[in-house]
């Protein structure tokens, strides 16, 4: 990776972190658990990296496959359980 490219990615990191703080700062306590399990599912984005690792090689491919299984559990399970939870939050009829 070239230095310019690295600096560019750092810009993205800084802006995205700031964005994250602004977006989540005022989340109501009622939603803390769904926020946590939802953002947990998002952190399964490593699935993208895992797919790219399951391409070639021997050991590196097997490591990638383990990563892919774990990341998919994280993503699918995380979203499904968050949806199940959010479904329950109802206002008084």
């Amino acid at each position, binding site marked *: 990776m070239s230095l310019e490219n690295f600096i560019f990615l750092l810009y993205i990191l800084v802006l995205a972190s700031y964005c994250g703080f602004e977006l989540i700062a005022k989340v109501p306590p009622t939603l803390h658990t769904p926020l946590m399990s939802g953002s947990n599912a998002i952190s399964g984005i490593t699935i993208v990296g895992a797919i790219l690792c399951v391409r070639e090689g021997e050991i590196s491919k097997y490591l990638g496959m383990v990563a892919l299984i774990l990341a998919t559990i994280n993503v699918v399970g995380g979203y499904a359980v968050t949806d199940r939870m959010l*479904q329950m939050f109802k206002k008084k009829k």
Partner: protein
Amino acid sequence: MNILIQITYLVATILFIVGIKKLNRTQEARQGNILSAVAMLLAVLATLVESQLLTPIETFSCMLLGGAIGLVWARRVEMTQMPEMVAIFNGFGGAASLFVAFSDYWTRAVEQPSLSTDLITIISILLSVIIGGITFTGSLTAYGKLSGKVSGNAIVFSGQHMLNLVLLLAAVACGVLVAIETGSVTAMIVMGVISLVLGILVVIPIGGADMPVVISLLNSYSGMAACTTGFVLNNSVLIVTGALVGASGIILTQIMCKAMNRSLISVLLGGFGATSGGAAAGGSASDMVIKEVGVEEAAMIFDSASSVIVVPGYGMAVAQAQHVVREMMDLLEKKGINVRFAIHPVAGRMPGHMNVLLAESNVPYDKLIEMEEINDDFSNTDVVLVVGANDVVNPAARTNPASPIYGMPILNADKARTVIVSKRSMAAGYAGIENELFGYPNCLMLFGDAKSTLTKMVGELKEM
């Protein structure tokens, strides 16, 4: 083709941001979660195209297997088990980052040593392995504690922090070796193992009620791990989403620490309650006179009240009493009694734990009131029912500077006309300190398992 993939990544990133923004509002939260799931799907599809699907069988079988496990797990889990579920999924995310980084490293170091590996990439790989490893075993330890498979108490031994420091330095040393010579496979593996051991060691000294902080922090770590993986693979979607998750975890961590009046450092050093509790409790414990109340009498007190506030705690989750509490609320409301719930930010074992449990038992969310909002109302409330909460209603936090929880914001349950505490026994709360509230003249103890005593009380109320 390449530009199409890039645009798909961009759209996915926007959807992630909008999705997480919508998680801020109860009415839109579900939609937000779905948006973010769509974003994930887009990112996965784009990556599948980018990878040219050289190994379709391996790729799809892994995804099908993982997806099936995740789906079944998510459908089956009880709402009371949410904290451990989040903990273990978090661990999987961390492990995935660890394995991706290791896989990338293996390609560079062993399989294709001709591939040029620059310093920035190798440092990113090293960070991914360390953060991913700590997140993995740290989350598994948290899972073990939360599900009762490992003792939930703080496990402390002398020299603990020293050991952690030495291990961290050793890991850094290994990292430096790998950075100098990419082919130092042994150093890399040793570093990976150390980070796994560190994950366990940093979580074991942290006790049960500090779990909300730990889960939030580990959540943040899993985001940071994804972020560093993004630097390894030069992929901005990973960096953006990882940063969003990292930020959300840090914010939740801050909120939890503030609600306990503790600094992050003191939580991480651990051992709360094991050391400071015993000495401070000694003094006032013996001269406390408590008053017991029977189910019948308690029902009568509720029946003659006009306003009731319920303070739920972890004990309610343990006793699975949330459904009977809701039944009681319905009955009292039918009698024209105003019932609300006061939710302390750290009640339960993860942020928002009580809200989810009560939502599951169909309590409308506008009945759940935050601490700051409801604290002034206790003084003109007839009856407060404390179910399985302890330290969050201990007035010592306001009055006794010697108490280990002094300064922690609490629910002013003691100010109500009558306080009924549903509790299994006189055992102290997590902090290991006597609760002054139980000796107050307006406090009545309703001993027994919360679920069975409250069920009996609901029966009595029905007959009134």
